[in-house]
């Protein structure tokens, strides 16, 4: 049965029934779920993976071959989406290096055995006594003092960077807040320390251009959780609006360091770079965001085009 199945696949016959299920799983396990953490489309329960799996299923049902499907996904998502790298270009190294390692290993072993069998004995140098340290270094007190200085120096060197790392669960950038601001404001009145609600509210305020509101909410969050990447990002947006691009850039750098997957932070960086007249760097930031969230590429392209247009209009007028 398997051979007939394979033959059918080679000529690209449309599939159906259990054979389709099996084949869908097989192809989906070769594709990486772009929004998950290293999971295959077959294993991931995320919405995006489910959609991609349906896509695979449809293509198989239409009669596309495995290779065609993989190629089509590679065209739209990049080689990132292939869990099994192709034997092509630099990527072939990942296949070749282990095989080369086996070759070297077998060679070394065969030489070791043949040499040892020949009774070849390597001359061993006598171990020389190493009492060569200077007299000053020998005094235990000296050593202890120097060591203590090293310890204090090292401690001093790492001190200023000390900061409590906020490890809030990572936000899902694609999740959109549908609740109106009123509802969130009520939630916050009830539980002032609901930072999630405050961030959601800040985002909403930002969309409505209420910069003071964004500032207040993000400031509140940052006081409690100084490294919250979303709070940093929206605070940065306010700073840009206030005409403090330097401050904003610093906040965004911290935001992307804390969570490189945050699209809005990259958009903020692109914004500052565009304002500074550095289109190449702006584009790099947008590309970085797109690379992390391939599904948002279209939106990013739109935002970036809009950004450029605005700057040009302002500079022109």
């Amino acid at each position, binding site marked *: 049965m398997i051979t007939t199945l394979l033959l059918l696949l080679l000529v690209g016959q449309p599939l159906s029934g259990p054979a389709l299920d099996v084949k869908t799983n097989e192809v989906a396990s070769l594709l990486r779920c772009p929004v998950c953490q290293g999971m295959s489309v077959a*294993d*991931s329960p995320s919405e995006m993976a489910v959609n991609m799996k349906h896509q695979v299923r449809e293509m198989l049902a239409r009669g596309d071959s495995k290779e065609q499907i993989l190629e089509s996904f590679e065209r739209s998502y990049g080689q990132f989406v292939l869990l099994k790298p192709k034997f092509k270009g630099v990527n072939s190294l990942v296949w070749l290096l282990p095989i080369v390692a086996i070759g070297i290993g077998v060679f070394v072993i065969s030489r070791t055995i043949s040499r040892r069998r020949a009774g070849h004995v390597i001359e*061993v140098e006598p171990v020389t006594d190493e009492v060569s340290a200077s007299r000053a270094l020998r005094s235990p007190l000296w050593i202890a003092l120097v060591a203590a200085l090293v310890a204090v120096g090292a401690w001093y060197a790492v001190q200023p960077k000390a900061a409590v790392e906020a490890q809030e669960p990572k936000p899902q950038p694609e999740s959109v807040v549908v609740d109106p601001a009123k509802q969130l404001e009520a939630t916050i009145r009830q539980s002032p320390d609901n930072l999630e609600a405050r961030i959601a509210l800040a985002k909403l305020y930002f969309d409505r251009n209420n910069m003071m509101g964004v500032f207040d909410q993000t400031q509140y969050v940052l006081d409690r959780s100084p490294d919250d990447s979303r709070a940093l990002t929206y605070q940065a947006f306010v700073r840009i609006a206030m005409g403090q691009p330097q401050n904003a850039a610093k906040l965004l750098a911290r935001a992307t360091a804390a969570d490189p997957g945050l699209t809005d932070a990259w958009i903020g960086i692109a914004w500052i770079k565009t304002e500074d007249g550095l289109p190449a760097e702006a584009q790099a930031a947008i590309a970085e965001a797109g690379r992390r969230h391939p599904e948002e590429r279209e939106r990013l392209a739109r935002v970036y085009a809009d950004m450029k247009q605005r700057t040009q209009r302002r500079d022109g007028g």
Partner: protein
Amino acid sequence: MNAALGRVLILSSLLVSTVGAFVAFAAGRTRDAQSLKWARRLAYAFSALMIGATLVMERALITHDFTVSYVAHVGSLSTPMWVTVASLWSSLEGSLLFWGCVMGIYIAIATFFTRERHREFMPDAIGVWLSCAAFFSLLLAGPANPFLTVVSQGDGPGPNPLLQNHLLMVVHPPFLYLGYVGMTIPFGLACAALIKGSLPSSLLKPIRESLMVPWVFLTFAIMLGGWWAYEVLGWGGYWAWDPVENASLLPWLTATAALHSIVVLERRGVLKGWTVTLILSTFLLVVLGTFMTRSGVFNSVHSFTQSAIGPMILGFLAAALVFTIALLSMRINRLESDGNFDGAVSREGMFLFNNLLFVVLTFTVLIGTVFPLVVEALRGKQMSVGRPYFDSMVVPIGTLLLFLLGVGPALPWGKATAKQLRRALLPPIVGAVILLVVGYAFGARNPWTLITLAFGGYAAQVTLAQMRSPIVQLRKSPRRIAAHVVHAGAVIVIVAIAISSTMRYTQEVHAVVGQPVTAGAYTLTLIGIEERQEPHRSSTVARFLVAKNGVQKTILEPRMNHYQTMREPIGTPDVYSTIAGDFYLSVLNIDPAQQSVSVNVIVTPFVGWIWFAVILMGLGGLAAVLPSVTLSVPAETIATEALVA
């Protein structure tokens, strides 16, 4: 108060370990007995300070002292006691503190057990241990300080929900740390041997034992991590070749290779430099693994611990790498052997091939893990190396290892005659055929699975025969028996992995309350959906009645858990395990309004055998260490008495 006390203890441990490292290295140069004594005292002092700091943190956690930054960060009044205690390793700063504590315990024990011995090597070994200790103290005193004073908010968010979601996640990290940190001890001993330029056979025992103990913990840790993934993540698998999983596997592979090459070294006096190299690599891979887990360079389930300490660990890795390479290149030729080989078709020959395969396996996993990073750094392109790659590379190597596991122990040491070879190698073919036929009868058709079954049957028969062999029985050698127990466990693990991964069956099922649905031989009936409240979470539970071939088997309750700090619910599957296999239900979607549930049904044969066989491996490893620790003194006395007589 707790915060200030903790800071004082951490700073003191930094001071003590740094001074201790300098004093120890100086003692190595001067051979001054007094300095060595002081180095030992400082090692004990470091242990005491680190354990003290950890106890202070536990007190702060249990008494909910929210003025301590770490408690404010992971503590919560609403979590149950076991979660509160385990919060120590739920986030970066605390887990590093715990790490320091484990290091303190290891260093104290190692210093104690070597107090009267290896006088030539101990100063440098203690120096290396305390240098590593000083680095971790520095992380704790600086960028990862858990004892900062903050204004109390009265309550905290509680630890990461993933930690609270399952007991296995609570026990997995301590085992991992016990495995990781313990590799510092053999590393120090191996460095000392290189620094002195000699590796006498008396030093092999402490090296082997100090390697075996963390190996056992690492073995358990890897298994617990896989078991956790299986019980919690809901996709029905236990190993995804995630970078962080690989990080725990890499040092395990080299440590396993080293444990084998030490046997050859003890027996034949060869492979000194090679064994030392494997031990050094094990430690470097531990540091690399720490970097991978703690820096967040990889996007993975474990990266909730990402932080700014990445660059510092990378710096430590670079320093350790330069140090070991320099040491090896200057001294490895002094460690040359006292014996020689008698040909490839012998037990020592098989040990060599075993080492080759383990190293190639390590190299392959390492390449597959870091290759995407390198490509991204050099060419700016993102690529993936995932499960299909690892499966296609690792399965053949693993199968070959299983083959060696059968053939190696069957062969005699040294040169063998053709007749001896026939007598050793032919009988186990019976075992191979039996397991192959049984597997085929139960429906195994995948060629790799069939090969694995055949090799597994061969290895099983060899292992059982060896355990009963007159030599082992006569000598009552616990180490030999222990080795065979580990091998038996390994055979079961490899066979169970082959069967469970190639013969599993999945199906998506949509169930409405009261209406039975079938999935293979099983029938599922959704009894109801209920909401459950606990202090730290609320759950939506789907209750299923499970029947197989019409006979009622069990009730399963896969669920969705909601945590206050997480927007998305975490699904928790439920499993019905039997000796023959597992029936696994993972919720995709619960609709209380429609009284319907979508579940993924996963039937995996044999999977439970993996956990128990790994436990068998670990216990075998422990057995190899424990008797020799207790018997070591009498054994030596007997030896000297024999000499005197």
